[in-house]
């Protein structure tokens, strides 16, 4: 081969020598159409030869060309390549036009290779990384919403550094994971996705059908998100600095609730109505309510001072007009803050023919809106690639990050969840210790404000007495430190002309160290003198593959084939220890604590060995066929069932290349495609076949085992069969359209096969369920205006799916407020149905079946449906709704006018319902729990308001019990992102050696319109809402400089 290169080089030299004899000199200047400035580094070549040069710093070139030459080719990365006829000229000036992003060749990053979009038979969406990088979130998964069709994103918690829940093309599993596989730079990623800053990402492709994913076999059933990090570009050294600084506030407003005055009047009304229901006469009921209001129903706390001897709330149910406000502390404001967000990145990239590199460093520091909630990350990345020989290439991508997350409790019912506390606590209770008679703050000897723990001055706050989250949050700690190292090594040799062999390896390391500290002064661990838990988790994965590629073209036939082998091992270690008994406050480490409470550790191992093959064939660039096959052997399963086979067939037809359509010049591209194939979901536990004794039952110092799992040698992965069909169009060089319809059948779903509990087990794992998702994805992009100074691009994506259970181990399985049955989706609501308010007495009514048992068939027969005011006897029904939206989508508009740019992303969901439990909690019927009310309570039934659909405001524990009254339409529209930028003039910048610079302001989660103020319909896939950390609204200023 060495000889061959010498020979080739010799030939070239000869060629150059030959032409030197008969040349003419051509000169000229190359400028940019963007700003009219000269462009250095533009390649100028004689078309079809190697004769060429690049322009100098002033954009000028000089080239001796053979007299026979006809055409010069001008090219530069990011600009449209131009062929210019020489036509006898000796001065040729050229204006280069930037490539329009929209017609840039879209590349799909697929398993084991990249493809031009038009040759890819599978279903893939390329995410616009420019937009992704503008969204001010620390985790890229949260930025994916609205940027790709077929993807449903629920943002979960607003705590910085948390990950979104992502579902691709419906819900493919019930009991195993339904989350997609992440592949970073060619290998499945087992680190923390948080460790990759959005600015380091070159490309994200979402792979959706079997043709695109089946090469990942047993891990691919829930789709794949392929992430490629940035690389250096040849001959273009680029230094980039990006700085974003912004502030974060709460992205979703609070529910509308009562103020102190309204609260006390509503509470009075409740007592009065309750008294009436206890057969008190009207006058006594009123006096009793006024008399007992403060002491019995407010725990003695009263924020209003009234003249001695008068009622605070009179017998007319109105607040005494002669009142003086003693305090009106706002729990939300006191517990929350405005966060500051800082995100800085510098990168250097570049390269030569032989080597390319990309080097970056990132620092992110993001405060949440809860006090002490924060996420801080340092990350570096070095990607480089070396062409050692013309047949041998090596490369290494290395990413490392360190992060620290402070995450106060922000979901669930623990009192330290500030979102729950500030939402639920009645407004009458003070945050700080105040004199009950004057409302003055009671300061400590140091003159500092003290917290009111709900037990001051002989009173007993009815909402969570003896606690105050402000006091606890300041003293507790919940910290999570996370280290990630991720390396991808590549090597490639080319041999025998058509062959290419790659040997690649990857390592992902993730270590996290957690500290949970409950302080010794107040709260749950007070009686234990404080409690600290340290936990350490370490995951380490090692993967290697050997891939042999063959590529051959002959007579308009193109064949591209691959065979390969891959092995994967994953080890996870966990260690935890808890101690109690601290001698002094502000000590957190276990060494300082006296008493061991618990400790433990375990290790989990997973191994996978795989063989794979793929053949892509096309004829004339019109007809494409793709065949994939992978077989996986997994340590999760028994020797006899361990190997699974996964395959796919995909085909596409570029109909626009056919002669009968060639005449339609407005039709740039038209393509039909279809695929069919299988994938698997192996997320069923690490030792899914073995009968196991758990060792976690020591009896004092003696080892103790307990049979924890029955053997299931037949257990295997969940299987997916996917059908995808699509049409892809591009017309008038402006408008692109893509429509795909899919059927995704998930079979052998993991379920517990129930056993009689008298056998000692309630069940064992078995592959016994099936679920089907059918839907379509639509993508539309249009280059609506593309004038010299003004352009407007529009991107729209829409997704729809229906989910249906097709097989279950039992006839029906009730799962919270859902019921699983064949023919229903896994998120179909099942609960009592609210039948409105009885206009005569204001009581809630629910529907109830009147039934009898048929003596012959022994089955229950429904005779009629009536209403009842007894919640317990009301019947549960399918409500006919589910949490799955009918349609979700995103719309991105991008405008450019001269140096200004403006883009905004709007996402929306139509259809589906959520169960608004925070609202239900605020519509409670309790007299003595010190909980605030939603303003809707003001419209409760009264004899004068007898048509209200809000039940009477009295004492009734069932008034807010689970029913479809609290199912709320999940429709929403969200102003997800708006970015306004200005690119500084190049002339100005060149004075400072800067190539280009852009300043911008960007806002994320700017506005959400949902059915009810305060309601976040995107909180969870299942539609169950909790009092959780609201998503953050972040407004940031940024600057991006390149030189």
């Amino acid at each position, binding site marked *: 081969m060495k000889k061959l290169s010498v020979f080739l080089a010799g030939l070239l030299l000869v060629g150059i020598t030959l032409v030197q004899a008969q040349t003419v000199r051509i000169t000229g200047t190359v400028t940019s159409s963007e700003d009219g400035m000269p462009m250095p580094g533009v390649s100028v070549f004689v078309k079809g030869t190697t004769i060429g040069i690049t322009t100098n710093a002033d954009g000028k070139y000089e080239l001796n060309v053979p007299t026979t030459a006809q055409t010069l080719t001008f090219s530069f990365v990011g600009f449209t390549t131009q062929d210019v006829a020489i036509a006898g000229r000796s001065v040729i000036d050229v204006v280069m036009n930037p490539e329009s992003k929209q017609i840039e060749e879209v590349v799909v990053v697929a398993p084991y290779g990249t493809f031009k979009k038009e040759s890819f038979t599978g279903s893939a969406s390329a995410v616009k990384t420019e937009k992704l990088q503008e969204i001010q979130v620390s985790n890229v998964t949260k930025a994916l919403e609205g940027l790709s069709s077929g993807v449903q994103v629920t943002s979960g918690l607003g705590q910085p550094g948390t990950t979104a829940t992502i579902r691709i093309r419906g819900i493919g599993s019930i009991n195993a994971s339904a989350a997609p596989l992440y592949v970073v730079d060619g290998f499945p990623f087992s680190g923390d996705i948080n460790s990759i800053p959005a600015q380091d990402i070159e490309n994200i492709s979402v792979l959706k059908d079997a043709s695109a994913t089946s090469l990942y076999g047993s891990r691919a059933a829930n789709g794949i998100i392929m992430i490629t990090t940035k690389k250096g570009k040849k001959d273009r050294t680029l230094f980039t600095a990006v700085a974003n600084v912004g502030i974060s506030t709460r992205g979703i407003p609070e529910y509308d609730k009562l103020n102190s005055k309204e609260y006390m009047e509503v509470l009075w009304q409740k007592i009065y109505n309750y008294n009436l229901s206890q057969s008190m006469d009207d006058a006594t009921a009123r006096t009793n309510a006024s008399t007992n209001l403060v002491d019995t129903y407010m725990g003695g706390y009263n924020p209003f001072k009234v003249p001695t001897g008068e009622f605070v709330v009179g017998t007319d149910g109105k607040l005494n007009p002669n009142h003086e406000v003693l305090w009106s502390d706002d729990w939300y404001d006191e517990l929350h803050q405005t966060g500051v967000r800082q995100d800085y990145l510098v990168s250097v990239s570049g390269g030569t023919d032989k080597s390319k590199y990309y080097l970056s460093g990132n620092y992110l520091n993001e405060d949440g809106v809860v006090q002490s909630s924060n996420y801080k990350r340092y990350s570096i990345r070095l990607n480089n690639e070396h062409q050692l020989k013309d047949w041998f290439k090596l490369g290494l991508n290395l990413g490392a990050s360190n992060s620290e997350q402070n995450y106060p409790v922000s979901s669930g019912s623990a009192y330290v969840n500030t979102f729950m506390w500030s939402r639920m606590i009645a407004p009458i209770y003070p945050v700080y210790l105040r004199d009950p008679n004057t409302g003055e703050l009671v300061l400590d000897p140091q003159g500092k404000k003290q917290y009111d723990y709900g037990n001051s001055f002989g009173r007993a706050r009815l909402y969570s007495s003896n606690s105050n989250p402000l006091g606890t949050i300041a003293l507790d700690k919940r910290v999570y430190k996370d280290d990630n190292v991720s390396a991808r090594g590549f090597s490639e040799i080319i041999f025998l002309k058509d062959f290419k*062999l790659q040997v690649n390896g990857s390592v992902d390391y993730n270590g996290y160290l957690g500290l949970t500290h409950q302080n010794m002064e107040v709260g749950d661990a007070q009686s234990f003198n404080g409690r600290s838990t340290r936990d350490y988790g370490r995951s380490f994965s090692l993967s290697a593959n050997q891939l042999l590629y063959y590529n051959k073209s002959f007579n308009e036939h193109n064949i591209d084939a691959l065979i390969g082998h891959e092995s994967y091992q994953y080890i996870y270690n966990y260690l935890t220890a808890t101690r109690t008994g601290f001698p002094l406050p502000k000590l957190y480490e276990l060494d300082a604590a006296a008493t061991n409470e618990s400790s433990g550790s375990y290790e989990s191992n997973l191994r996978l060995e795989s063989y794979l093959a793929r053949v892509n064939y096309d004829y004339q660039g019109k007809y494409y066929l793709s065949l994939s096959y992978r077989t996986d052997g997994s340590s999760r399963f028994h020797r006899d069932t361990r190997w699974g086979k996964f395959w796919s067939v995909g085909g596409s037809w570029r109909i626009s290349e056919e002669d009968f359509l060639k005449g339609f010049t407005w039709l740039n591209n038209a393509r039909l495609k279809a695929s069919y194939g299988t994938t698997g979901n192996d997320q069923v536990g690490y030792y899914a076949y073995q009968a196991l*004794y758990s060792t976690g039952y020591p009896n004092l110092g003696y080892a*103790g085992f307990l049979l924890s799992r029955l*053997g299931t040698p037949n257990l295997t992965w969940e299987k997916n069969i996917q059908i995808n069909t699509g049409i892809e169009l591009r017309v008038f060089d402006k408008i692109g359209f893509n429509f795909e319809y899919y059927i995704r059948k998930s079979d052998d779903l993991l379920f517990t096969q129930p056993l*009689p*509990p008298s*056998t*000692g087990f*309630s069940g064992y794992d078995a592959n016994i369920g099936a679920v089907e998702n059918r839907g379509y994805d639509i993508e539309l992009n249009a280059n609506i205006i593309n004038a010299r100074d003004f352009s407007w691009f529009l991107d729209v994506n829409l997704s729809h799916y229906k989910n249906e259970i097709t097989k279950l181990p039992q006839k029906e399985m009730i799962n919270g407020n859902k019921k699983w049955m064949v023919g229903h989706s896994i998120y179909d609501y099942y609960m009592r149905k609210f039948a409105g308010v009885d206009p005569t007495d204001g009581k809630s009514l629910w529907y109830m079946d009147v039934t009898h048992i048929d003596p012959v068939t022994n089955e229950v027969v429904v005779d009629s449906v009536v209403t009842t005011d007894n919640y317990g006897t009301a019947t549960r029904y399918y409500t006919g709704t589910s949490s799955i939206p009918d349609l979700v989508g995103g719309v991105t508009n991008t405008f450019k006018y001269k140096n200004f740019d403006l883009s905004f992303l709007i996402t929306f969901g139509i259809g589906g319902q959520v169960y608004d439990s925070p609202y239900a909690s605020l519509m409670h019927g309790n007299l003595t729990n010190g909980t605030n009310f939603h303003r809707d309570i003001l419209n409760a039934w009264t004899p004068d308001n007898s048509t209200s659909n809000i039940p009477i405001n009295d004492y009734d524990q069932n008034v807010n019990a689970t029913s479809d009254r609290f199912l709320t339409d999940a429709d929403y529209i969200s102003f997800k992102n708006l970015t306004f930028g200005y690119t500084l003039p190049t002339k100005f910048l060149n004075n400072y050696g800067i190539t280009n610079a852009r300043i911008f302001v960007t806002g994320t989660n700017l506005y959400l319109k949902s059915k009810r103020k305060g309601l976040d319909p995107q909180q969870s896939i299942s539609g169950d809402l909790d009092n959780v950390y609201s998503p953050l609204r972040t407004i940031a200023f940024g600057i991006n400089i390149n030189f």
Partner: protein
Amino acid sequence: MKIKFLTYLLLAGLMVSCSDDFLETSPSASISDDKVYTNIEGAKAVIDGVTRDWRDYHGYHDQFGVKAIDLVSDLMGEDIVVGRLHWFRYDYTIDNREATYRRPNYVWSLFYRGIRNLNEVIAHYDEATNATEEQKKHIKAQALTLRAYAYFRLIQHFQQTYVGHQNDAGIPVYTEPTNDGKPRATVQQVYDLITSDLDEAITLFTEANIDRRDISEVDLSVAHGIRARVALVMNDWNNAASHANDARQAYSLNSIDQYKAGFDNKDEMVWMWGLPVNEEQSTIYASFFSHLDMTIGGYAGLGYSPKYLCHTLFTQMQTGDIRRDELLNPTVSGGVPVYINYKFAAAGDKEFNADYVMMRPEEMLLIAAEAYARLGGANEPTAQGLLQELWNARFRAPVPTVTETGQALIDRILLERRIELWGEGFAFYDIMRLKKGLNRTNHIFPAIPGNVIPAEDPVFIYKIPQTEIDNNPLIAESDQNP
């Protein structure tokens, strides 16, 4: 270059080949079933696992093993007054028996889980390659004793007492591990298995003649003790007396000081069987002492659900009795006179790590005394003597003298059981076997079926869990308890 190229290919080839056992992994915190029984220590570890499970926390604060069910037994009786309804409220109000309720499901699953594991031990203990015959017998004897204990607890909750109900449907009986459900055996069949298990265990313990490792292990005395309890329920007075005597042979009675030690520390009292707890394995708020002990900051002590000794029992206690004079603190709750009982007092000692008592010699004495009293005739002075022996250990001088005879003597002994064993889990089982029904006076909250419930009323027994009926083809809805 050719060499380099070949080296590269070779390297690539090396990385391709994985060894055969690459895909064989095993967990670190679990042991696969085929490895457990290769050593006798494995079988012993399963017995320890069951023992731990029986004092472990299971998801709710009123589910912490056998002592939770012991507490249920006392709460379903007459002698504990609950000051405020909280955890255990439905047990206390005799309203926790439906097929889908947590309590029947918990009792069922806790003991059947134990039975399954013990059946595995009984099926596999012989596979150990490193054990003597004596060691194997010792293991089997423990497994049989615990299995009998589990069936004995179950049968008393899911059917009326033995006498008069021998032919009624009992509970499924498993003597070997299986995933196939069994039908309800008759009460007689269940008791046949219990007695034969215990008799075999007694033989094996005697033959093995190995001292037990610690107090959490059942041994010959405990096997005799359980056998005596069973005989008492079966009204088999001779066996009750003889097994009770055998059981307490090696044990003296607890002295006054020992009785006043708080029942929280095995080292400070004479126990025959106990489940010691340490800091790491404590279930803290979800523990027996959290719910009953008024001296530590648990559910009882913090006032969420105080438990008192009932005034009705108090009035039947005699002056001079240290259990009355030195452990009770009178107070009033809900307008009713009640008594804080410092019998269970872990404060200043083991606190939330208090040990659990499972059997002690005084109970054996009382079983023997009752049995002799019921046998009557020449046995009556023996019964009187036994009761006198206990009184001598519970009264400051002057100690009253036992003078009762006949039914009065039996009643006195039964009253003594209520006084001596208060809070130890016997109340419900005595109500059942004595067929005396429930008659609560001086309580604050009423029982749902009423404060007076006749003997053998269906409300006393649990329904078979619905999941059992749904998944066991041999138990139909028509087999359900009334």
